[in-house]
């Protein structure tokens, strides 16, 4: 009995102990690399004259959803969701870390670049939600 409970407790401690979970998000580089690999042929076929700008490639793939390969459909579903989560984390980081910034980044110029750079320097001591948002933003490396 004890042999089961102990690992369970350790697992629980890890989950609640403030250790940030690994990033459940993805970078633009990674997302568009996967997209090019899984959907490259479909893009050449259905979206050959579509520019990468304006989200047009994504829109073109969606428009041709019934015709693209199953692998391409699956990659789209996986990557765009993870990418959206990363974008959201980057967008809300300053807000989520507001209290930590007041503590560790006082006197820093009110410029997103300087504030976020300060946060990254302080990332070892900031609170768990701030730590998590930095991980989700892909800025913890």
């Amino acid at each position, binding site marked *: 009995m004890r042999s089961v409970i102990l690992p369970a407790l350790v697992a629980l401690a890890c989950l609640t102990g403030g250790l940030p979970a690994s990033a459940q998000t993805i*970078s*633009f*580089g*990674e*997302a*568009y*690399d996967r*997209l*090019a690999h899984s*959907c*490259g042929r479909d*893009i*050449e076929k259905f979206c*050959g*004259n*579509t*520019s*990468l*700008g*304006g*989200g*047009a*490639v*994504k829109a073109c793939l969606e428009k041709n959803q019934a015709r693209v390969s199953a692998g391409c459909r699956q990659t789209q579903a996986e990557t765009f969701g993870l990418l959206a989560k990363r*974008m959201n984390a*980057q967008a809300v980081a300053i807000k989520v870390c507001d209290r930590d910034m007041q503590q560790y980044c006082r006197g820093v110029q009110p*410029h*997103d*670049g*300087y504030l*976020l*750079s300060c*946060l*990254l320097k302080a990332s070892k001591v900031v609170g768990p939600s701030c730590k998590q948002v930095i991980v989700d933003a*892909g*800025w913890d*490396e």
Partner: protein
Amino acid sequence: MNRTALALSAAILAASGALGHAQERLNDVTLINTLNVLDESTRIDVAALRKKAVDSVAANRGPDRSLREPLSMELDNLSQVTVEVQFKTGSAVIRPESFRAIGVIADSLRHPTLLQYTFLIVGHTDAVGDRKSNLALSEKRAAAVRQALVTTFGIEPGRIQSVGLGEEQLQVRTLGGSSTNRRVQVVNIGRFK
């Protein structure tokens, strides 16, 4: 700094074979470190640079391309990365092989370390075909990269400008058709706000 930028360009270019695999070498950590230096003593006037390129073509400056001097020496002294971007032939449509490269540039420019800077995307073609058409094509391609970065990849439009230099600033003057000449530079040109 310049040495680092050139070394990186060389590494990327040296590895670029017929396939797009060279781009695998591009990574955001290297890009961020390379671009994180601003030379405050050099000011790049993008409109003036664009005009200089147009005038260069109109005047047939350096008719022998193997002897043609670079259009802007100061540009090459700034912190920059050189990336090979694959476009459809004769078009500004970026091919899927290069989606990752544009994505990595975006990841880097969105990183807190680089948020304080503005950048110039410079497009170059090789020296095959008509000089004037090459200038127009490079302008469109540089604009397409900028457009992708500020829309699909969500970078503040005020942080990026673009310009095309056609074949007015060849990397390898002696080999006009070399793929090394077909390149996109991302150059740190100033402070944002």
